[in-house]
């Protein structure tokens, strides 16, 4: 029983990490309708930035999370404006090729510039664990989990209570009608891509206390992120949060009760079942935005 509770705790906390990465991905997909295959590499770029800010200036990853999020906002916006925007009327395959191309280019550029070395950010705060009632809770994981929930809440408020947020939702629901209503769709796309990328910049800061950075680090998370996004419903932030928690739990429980190497079998099986029985995902409204 004790082990089960610990497994559940571990699973939920792991879900927090997946959530914070998936939120940005689902936002971009929900609004711009582009699957950003370079999302993992944006995480990698964010983590390198956090690493170097720590190395040069001694900034703690939690401190550099905000500037890095801002930097990634700009990178995401630039990618949307100069790479995706020209391809918006092209078939979806072409857009996918473009993002996959960016992903490969960034990964190998990082390998070229930084080398394959695994670089850890060594800090005190945000590492280690506490014992609560006989169970262990990782501090870094706990911070990530709480931040994921706060982020979803903040984005929800942004989307429902602000004028810009309303524009986002309008574009997600019906692009042409929104344009007719005077919304500058291209500008919204740029901002949305930026916000989605900023979320993964925040993730970079939070995850840097737990994982070292190396050029392929994005690939370790991205497949799970895609499963989460599809499971939760593409475009739904609550979907991303709950999907992530579910996947985290599956990861933890199947790792213990089946075998650690069959974890992916478990959650990809769920992925396939969702695609068969509920392709729009748990919270998806087909073309919904939140």
């Amino acid at each position, binding site marked *: 029983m004790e082990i089960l509770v610990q497994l559940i705790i571990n699973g939920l906390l792991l879900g927090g*990490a997946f959530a914070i990465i998936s939120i940005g991905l689902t936002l971009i997909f929900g609004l711009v309708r582009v699957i950003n295959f370079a999302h993992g590499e944006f995480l990698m770029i964010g983590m390198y930035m956090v690493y170097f800010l720590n190395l040069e200036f001694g900034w703690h990853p939690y401190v550099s999370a905000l500037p890095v999020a801002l930097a990634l906002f700009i990178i995401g916006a630039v990618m949307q404006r100069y790479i995706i925007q020209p391809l918006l009327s092209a078939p979806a395959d072409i857009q996918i090729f473009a993002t996959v191309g960016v992903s490969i280019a960034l990964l190998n550029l990082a390998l070229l510039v930084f080398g394959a070395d695994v670089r850890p950010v060594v800090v005190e705060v945000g590492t280690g664990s506490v014992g609560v009632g006989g169970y262990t809770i990782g501090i870094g994981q706990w911070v990530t989990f709480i931040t994921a929930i706060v982020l979803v809440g903040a984005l929800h408020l942004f989307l429902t209570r602000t004028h810009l947020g309303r524009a986002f939702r309008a574009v997600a629901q019906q692009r042409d009608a929104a344009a007719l209503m005077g919304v500058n769709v291209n500008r919204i796309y740029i901002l949305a891509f930026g916000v989605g990328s900023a979320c993964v910049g925040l993730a970079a800061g939070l995850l840097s206390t737990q994982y070292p950075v190396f050029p392929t680090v994005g690939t*370790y998370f991205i497949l799970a992120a895609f499963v989460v996004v599809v499971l939760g419903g593409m475009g739904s932030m609550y979907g991303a949060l709950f999907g992530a928690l579910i996947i985290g739990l599956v990861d933890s429980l*199947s790792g213990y009760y089946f075998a650690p190497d069959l974890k992916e079998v478990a959650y990809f099986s769920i992925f396939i079942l969702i695609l068969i029985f509920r392709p729009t995902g748990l919270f998806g409204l087909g073309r919904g935005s939140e």
Partner: protein
Amino acid sequence: MRFLAKYCASACAGAIIALGAMGPSQAADLKIGALYPFSGGLALLGDESFRGAEMAVAERNAAGGVNGQQIKLFKADAVDANQAVGEARRLTSVDNVAAIFGSYSSSISFAATQVAELAGVPYFELGAISDEITSRGYKNVYRSNPTAKDFSEASLDALVKIIGPALKIEPKDFRIAIIYEDGLYGTTVSGFQKKRAKELGLNVVESLPYSAKAVDLSSLILRLKGAKADVVLQTSYQTDTILYFKQAKAAGFTPKAVIGVGGGYSLLDTAKALGSTMDGAFDIDFPQYATNEAGAPGMSAFVEAYKKRYGTAPRSGHSLANYVGAQAFLDILANAKSTDKDKIRAAVMAYEKPVGTTATGWGFKFNEAGQNERVTLYLAQWQGGKLITVGPEKAAVAPPIFPK
């Protein structure tokens, strides 16, 4: 008419240039391919391994080359088995290399050697450990380094002969957990470990594969805790080693001994990432730089030369292993006095050096399958952020330390 004249003129010019390029005859370079993972996830150790071969070649070229020929290395980047096949084909049929050095990764080597064997080009494996590479009945694949079987057996022998006595525990009383990454490397090594453990009558309580790309091993660690494992044998790459140690510490899992078999356990970067968390971890590995010179003559000279050439200390023992292997194969190529594969094979079979005469402590004697049988493996331990040889006694620099 004018067209014809122009055509003739350029044809003549071309012929003159071609004749000029043939030039005064000079010994053509000896072309050797270097097939390693230079990019992708294995790039760090692939590059480190290549550096060893590169140094051996540079040293040899400075000393006059092989029978008067300067050696030219043709780098080939193979991230995975598919690319390995493509690159091996390019080396053998486009670049026409006389031989290939490689490859650090067993799956890359396995694929590339098939191509080389079919093309009749000798393949000198300097670092990959999967036994299958030299047990397919191939005639032109040779390997200088120990195999997974050697490593695996050494890890259990070390537990029985060095660690058990030091802890004053009967080996049969250990509760052993074998955890490994689920690729060719992990499955091969753990397979031999399980076999050897059975031969020695040891108690293996858990055997758990996991994906090297896992972002969470906490459920695996809970399993180990549940099974009350007190010895962990791990076969892992770098990121999973870091993840395991971090999460084991967080979960409060402290077995009496953790023994790695190369991979992530060999790397200085792993120790830097983990700090004191890694102290006490054992590693069966290619010879380490902190080894008694009595067991490995020439090791410090290698380290000095490496620092001079690359500006840092060696990042792992792979460069040394590749260096010693490449040196031996260059000797063999010189002895063969030819790039004919049969003459090279004869030279390989005839080449002999006693154990303890090279910078890794290895000797050389190749069996029919092309595998070097005079390999030695030492037990090392991370102490104070350094990997130190702790056994057997002749090679030891310090005794093993255990958590209180």
